[in-house]
C-alpha cells in the first residue's frame, strides 16, 4: 500500500512541482475565489514513513468537511504540500516558501522533530503559524520565541517518556536501559528519563545510542550491553526502521533473555508490524500513544478513522498504521478554521491570537476546552496518553494496566 502511495505521490509531486492542491482548491480557482492555503511539510521522500499519508488524509477530510459547509470567510480551504524527505535544510527551505505565499496562513509539520526544530527561526521570522501534528521534541513549543508561533496537538517527549517510565514503574521495573537515537530527540528523551528516574527512585543503568538513517543491520551489541548493565526493561526511542531491527535482535535471543520493551511512538509512523515480522509477538512490547481505533473515545473519531481507512483501501480502520496522524491533523485543521473565522481575516498574527482564544471545540481526539492560551501551546496533556500493544493481526489494542 505504502509503496503504491509513495510511488504515485512521487510521480504526482514530480509533475506538479511538489505543489499539490485538493480538487476543491482547483475547482474554486476556476470561479475566481482564491482559496486559503494550509501548508503541509511532509516527509514523503522518506522511504518507510507512513505518517505523512495519515496526516495528509486527516487534513484532506477536515478540509472537505469545512469546504462542504461553505469554507471559511467565504473562501475554500486548500492544501499545499512540500516534501522535506526528513532532512532539516529542506524543511527550512519549505518553511521559507510557505512564508513567502500570503495565502498560506499556517502549515502543518510532519513527524520528524529535527526538521521542525530547524524551522523555528524561519517560522518566527516571517510570522507563519506552525501546527505540530506529530513531532514530539519538547523544544518545538518551548522554543524561547516571543510571541510563540507554534501550536502542538500531539504527545511530546517529556510526557511520553514519563508515561513510559510510569508504566514501567507500575509493573515493578526500576532499572531501565535506554536505547535512543544520536540526535536531539534521543538526548531530550534521556534528559526526561533521568528526571523521572531521579524523582521516582528508579535508575537509568545504561544508554545505547544508535545513528539516524537505517543503516545498521543489527543492534545485538547494544542490547547485550543494556542487559549486562542490569536493565530490567528497555526504554526504546526509535523510528520504525531502527525499532524493527532492535526488536528482531531481542526476539533472536532465548525467551528468558528477552527484556520487555516500552517504546516511544516513533515506531507507529510506519508499517511496523510488516517490518518487525514475528518478533512483534515474541517480545513484550508496549507503546505510548494518544489514540487507536479500538481505544477511540468518541463516535466522531471512529467515523473519521473509518472514512480514512476506506480512502486508503484498507480492510478496516484498525489496520491504519499511523492513526494518530489522521486524528491530530484533522483536529488541528478544524481549530485553525475556527481561529480564522474568529479573526475574520487571514492575517497571521490575528489568527495566532484567535488560536489562543478557542473556547470549546468538540474534536475527534476529545472535547477541547481552551486548548491553547498565551502561555499554553500543548493541546494534549499526560492524561490523554495511553499504553497500547500489538495484537496478533498487527492491529493495536489497549495494553492491560500494570501487569508484569
Amino acid at each position, binding site marked *: 500500500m505504502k509503496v503504491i502511495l509513495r510511488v504515485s505521490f512521487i510521480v504526482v509531486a514530480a509533475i506538479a512541482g511538489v505543489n499539490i492542491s485538493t480538487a476543491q482548491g482547483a475547482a474554486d480557482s476556476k470561479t475566481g475565489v482564491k482559496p486559503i492555503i494550509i501548508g503541509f511539510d511532509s516527509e514523503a521522500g522518506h522511504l518507510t514513513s507512513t505518517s505523512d499519508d495519515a496526516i495528509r488524509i486527516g487534513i484532506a477530510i477536515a478540509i472537505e468537511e469545512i469546504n462542504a459547509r461553505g469554507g471559511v470567510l467565504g473562501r475554500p480551504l486548500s492544501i499545499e504540500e512540500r516534501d522535506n*524527505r526528513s*532532512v532539516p*535544510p529542506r524543511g527550512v527551505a519549505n518553511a521559507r516558501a510557505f512564508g513567502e505565499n500570503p495565502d498560506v496562513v499556517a502549515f502543518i509539520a510532519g513527524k520528524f522533530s529535527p526538521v521542525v526544530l530547524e524551522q523555528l527561526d524561519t517560522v518566527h521570522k516571517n510570522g507563519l503559524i506552525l501546527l505540530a501534528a506529530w513531532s514530539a521534541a519538547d523544544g518545538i513549543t518551548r522554543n524561547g520565541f516571543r510571541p510563540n508561533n507554534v501550536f502542538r496537538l500531539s504527545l511530546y517527549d517529556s510526557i511520553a517518556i514519563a508515561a513510559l517510565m510510569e508504566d514501567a514503574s507500575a509493573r515493578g521495573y526500576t532499572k531501565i536501559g535506554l536505547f535512543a537515537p544520536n540526535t536531539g530527540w534521543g538526548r531530550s528523551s534521556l534528559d526526561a528519563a533521568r528526571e523521572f528516574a531521579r524523582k521516582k527512585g528508579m535508575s537509568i543503568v545504561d544508554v545505547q545510542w544508535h545513528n539516524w538513517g*537505517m543503516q545498521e543491520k543489527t543492534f545485538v551489541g547494544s542490547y547485550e550491553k543494556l542487559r549486562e548493565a542490569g536493565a530490567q526493561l528497555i526504554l526504546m526511542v526509535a523510528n520504525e526502521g531502527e525499532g524493527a*531491527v532492535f526488536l528482531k535482535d531481542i526476539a533472536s535471543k532465548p525467551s528468558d533473555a528477552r527484556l520487555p520493551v516500552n517504546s516511544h511512538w516513533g515506531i507507529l509512523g510506519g508499517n511496523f508490524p510488516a517490518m518487525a515480522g514475528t518478533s512483534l509477538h515474541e517480545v513484550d512490547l508496549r507503546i505510548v500513544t494518544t489514540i487507536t481505533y479500538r481505544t477511540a473515545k468518541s463516535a466522531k473519531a471512529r467515523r473519521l478513522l473509518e472514512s480514512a481507512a476506506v480512502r486508503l483501501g484498507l480492510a478496516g480502520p484498525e489496520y491504519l498504521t499511523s492513526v494518530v496522524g489522521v486524528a491530530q491533523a484533522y483536529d488541528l485543521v478544524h481549530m485553525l478554521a475556527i481561529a480564522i473565522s474568529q479573526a475574520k481575516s487571514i492575517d497571521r498574527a490575528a489568527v495566532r491570537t484567535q488560536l489562543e482564544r478557542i473556547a470549546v471545540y468538540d474534536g475527534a481526539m476529545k472535547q477541547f476546552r481552551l486548548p491553547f492560551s498565551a502561555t499554553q501551546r500543548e493541546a494534549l496533556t499526560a492524561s490523554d496518553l495511553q499504553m497500547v500493544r500489538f495484537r496478533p493481526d498487527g492491529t493495536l489494542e489497549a495494553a492491560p494496566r500494570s501487569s508484569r
Partner: protein
Amino acid sequence: MAAHLNQLARELSDLSNNMLVTNAISDSQGRSSYLAPFLNDINKGAYGFHELRLMDLTGVTLAGTGSVSRAPLWLTPEVVKRLEGGHKHASLERETQRVVIAVPVLFPPSRTVEGVLYGTIALQPLLVSSSQARASDVAVSILDREGRTVTKVEFYPTAQNGHNLQRVLDMISPLDTLGLQAELTVDGFDGVWLTGTLVLVFICGGLIFFFLTVFVSMRVARSISQPVLQLSAAAAQIASSGAAVPDSIPLVGYGEVADLARSLRLMADAVQRNQSILEDRVQSRTRDLQEAKSRLDDVMSSVDDAIWSYVARERQFRVVSEAAERITGIRVRDIISDPIRLLNLIEFADRRKVRAALRQIVRRRSESLEIDLRITTASGIAKVVRTRLRGVFSASGRLLRVDGISTDITVRVSTEIRLRLLERGVNASENGIVITDYRMPDNPVIYVNPAFERITGYGALEAIGRNCRFLLGNDLQQPGVIELRAAINAGHPARVTVRNIRKDGAVFWNDLAISPVLSTSGKVTHYVGVITDVTAKRESESAQQIYMARLESILSLSPDGFATFDIEDRLTFANQAIQRFTDISVEDLHGLKMRQVWGILQRRSDGRYPFPEIEHCFEHEDDPGGRAYDVRKAVMHISGPESPRVVQAAIRDGVTGLAASVMFLRDMTRESEVNRMKSEFLSTAAHELRTPMASILGFSELLLTRELAPDIRKDLYQTVYDQATRLSNLLNELLDLARIEARMGRDFKYTVSPIGSIVRSTLGALMIPGDSRIVKVNVDSEEALVRVDGEKIQQALTNVISNAYKYSAGRGDIELSVTCTAQDVAVTVRDSGIGMTPEQLSHMFERFYRADTTGNIPGTGLGLSLVKEIMEIHGGECRIASEHQVGTTVTLLLPIFREAAVSPAEVAVVA
C-alpha cells in the same frame, strides 16, 4: 603527489558513507559535539586536508575543521545539481593554491543526496614534501589545464633558465577533471657558476656588516637599557611565576621608559583580572571538552568498525574502540596490554601480509593501504576483517604511529562467494532470467542471463535499462499482461503465459514467473523473472485442445455412455449420456473408482436378470493397428422408467495417454426388442402358414394313396381348397402389410373424395356369404372431403366390417355411422358380438393375434394390423372400444381435407 591526491579523494569518498556523517545531517542540535571532533581527529590522524567539512546543499556548513565560513564560491547551482545527481566535484582555488574535492553524502532514509563532504588541500606544502627527496637543482611547478602556473617550488634560484619537462598528472575522478600538469625545470651549468660566485660575495659582505652593527648597537644599548632590563626582569618573573603582580614592577627610568613602566604595571593589573576570568572559562571549557569526549566515546562504541592507533615506539595500542572486542572476542584492555594476542588471532598465512604492510609503511612506499585478514576469534569463530592502515610520521620522517580502521566483512565476503556461485548457476540456466529494479522509474531491466539473450534474441546491452514491455510489441492488453501488471503493482509474485516478440520479429510464447525481492524493511526492491519459451508446447497443447474439444463434442452428442479412468482407476471423464445409465450426474461420478461405477450399475440392475461380475467378462481383442487389448464385455439389464433397458457394457484396458481404461455403455433395448419381435413374428408366421399347409399336405397325400368313396373324396378336395384359400389370403395380407410398411405410403394414389361416396362404394362391394344381415348406415356428413387412397381406405373399412360380421354372427345388427368434427371425419362400425376382454383388447393390433381361440371364426390375425398401418399412413387413427359379450366399436378417424382449390376432376374420380 598525484598518488597522494588520489588517496585523499578515495578517503573522502569512504568518509562520506560513515554513519556519523549521515547521522549529522539530521542531528542539527547535537552534531557539533561529535562531528567536528570526529573530523578533526580523522584529519589529524590519517588525512591531510587543509579544511574538512560537511555542509548541506545550500552551502551552510554543518560541521568541520577550520573556521566556519560562508558558502564556498565553487558551490554554484550547476555544481549542486551534479552533486545531487551523485557525482563528485573537484575545483582549483588559484589564489590560495588549493584543490577542493567535494563528494555527495547520501541520506539513507530518503536515498537522496542531502549533504556535501568536502576537503581542501594546499598544493604548495604537498609539492614541497613530495619534491624534496629528489630535487636539489630543479624547480617544480603545477600548471592548470591552460598551462598557467598554480604553484611553484624552486630549489635553485636560476632554475627558470633551465630545461623544462611537462607531464599531465594521472588522477582519479573527480580530480581528473582539473587536468593538472607538473612541470620540472632543470638548471643549466653556466648559470650555476656565475650565480654561485655572486651569492658567495654577497654572503661574505653581509656577514661583516652584520657583526659590526651588532657590536656598536650593544654598546649604545647597554647605557640606555638598564631600566628596561629591570622592567624586563620583572616581566620575566611575572611570566615565570604565571601570576601578574602589579606591585613587583618598579617605576624606573625617564621619559618613555617611565611611561613604559607605568603602562606595564597597568597591563599587569589588567592581565591579573583577565587571568581570573580566563581560569573560570578554561574550567568551563574543560568540562565541555570532557562531556564531548564522553559523547565521542559513546559514539565510537556504537560504530561497528574497530578504530585503533598503534604507537610504534611503545609497541602498544594507544586507542582501541569497543568494536574491536565485538570483532575479535578479546577485551579492549587485554588488546592494549598484550598486542601479541591480537596478532595470534590472524591466520598464519595472513601474518606475512601484516608484516609486508608494515614494512611498506615504514619505508614510506605507501602511507595508507588496505589488507583483508582471516582471523579466528577468541571464541573460535572464523572471520574476515578488512583493515585500513595509515602511517603517521614525524616532521623528520620517523614513523610515530599506525592508525587503522578494521571492519568485519565476513558476511560480505561469504555473500560475495555465494553471489558468484549463484551467478554461475544463473548463467548456466536453460531458462532466461531477468532482474528489474523496482525502485527506479519504470522498473527497468538491470540484468539478463545468456539464456535470456538466446530466447529473445536481444543482447544484454539492448535489454538493460528498458522496461520488459519491449518484448510485448504493441500487444499490451493481453490477459496475462494485465494479470502481471496487477501483481507487480501489488508487489506479489505471479506466473502467466504471454505472447512475446523476438528481436527478429518472430512470436514466441513465454511462460513467465516473476517474484519480488524484498528489502529488510519489507519493501519490494527488485523483481526476478524466469522466462521459458513454451511456443512448441503451447502449439501442441493448442492442437490437442482442438482435438479434445472435437472429441468432447462428439462424445457429448453420442447416445452411448463413455467414461475414462486414470492409472489409479479413478474416473477422469464421462459424457452426459452416462447419466442415463447411472442416474448420477457427471460431476458426482468424477473421481469414483471403476468398481464403484460398476456397483452403481449393479444397484440399478433389474433383479430378474443375472448381473455380470466385472472380473468374469474378459475377452481379447485386436485394434485396427494390430495391437492386442484386454476387453471386458457384458450385457446387463438396467431398470428403466417403464421397462428394463438392455445395456451392453465394454471396458477396454491398457489405453495410453490421459486414460488408462475406457468404459463404454450402449443402450441395446430397441435392438433387443426388434430382434425379439422379429423372432416372435417369424415363429408366429411360420406357425400360421404351417397349419393350413399341414392340412393340404395331409389330405392330398390321402387322396393320392387311398381309394376313397367319391363323396369323401369331394369333401377332402373341399378341405384342401379351403386351406389353400386360407394360405393364399394369409400370404396376400402378409404381402400387403409388408409392402405398406416398406413403402410407407409412397405408392398410395391420393385423391380428394367425399367420405360418403367411399363408404357407399365399400358397402356396395361387400359380400358376406351365408349372412343375411345388412349394415345400418347413418351418414351425417356425406360431403365431408378427405384426401385418401380410395382403394386402401375401402380395404381397411372392409376389414373392419367383415370382422363385425364374423364376431357377431347371429347376435344383432351392425351399424355404421359417419360423423364429422372440426378436424376429423369418424367412420364408426359397431356390432353386438362377443366383444373382448381388456386383456384381449390390449393385444388387438399385434400381428397374428386372434381373440378367438376356438378356431371357429376364420381369419389371419393380420386384418387389424393392416387397418392400423393404413390409417396411420393417412394421418388418421384406428380406435377400438369393446366389452366382453356386449360388442365392439371400431372408429376410423381421417383428417378433413380443407384445401379450397380442389379441382372438380379430382373430386369426380371416386364419385
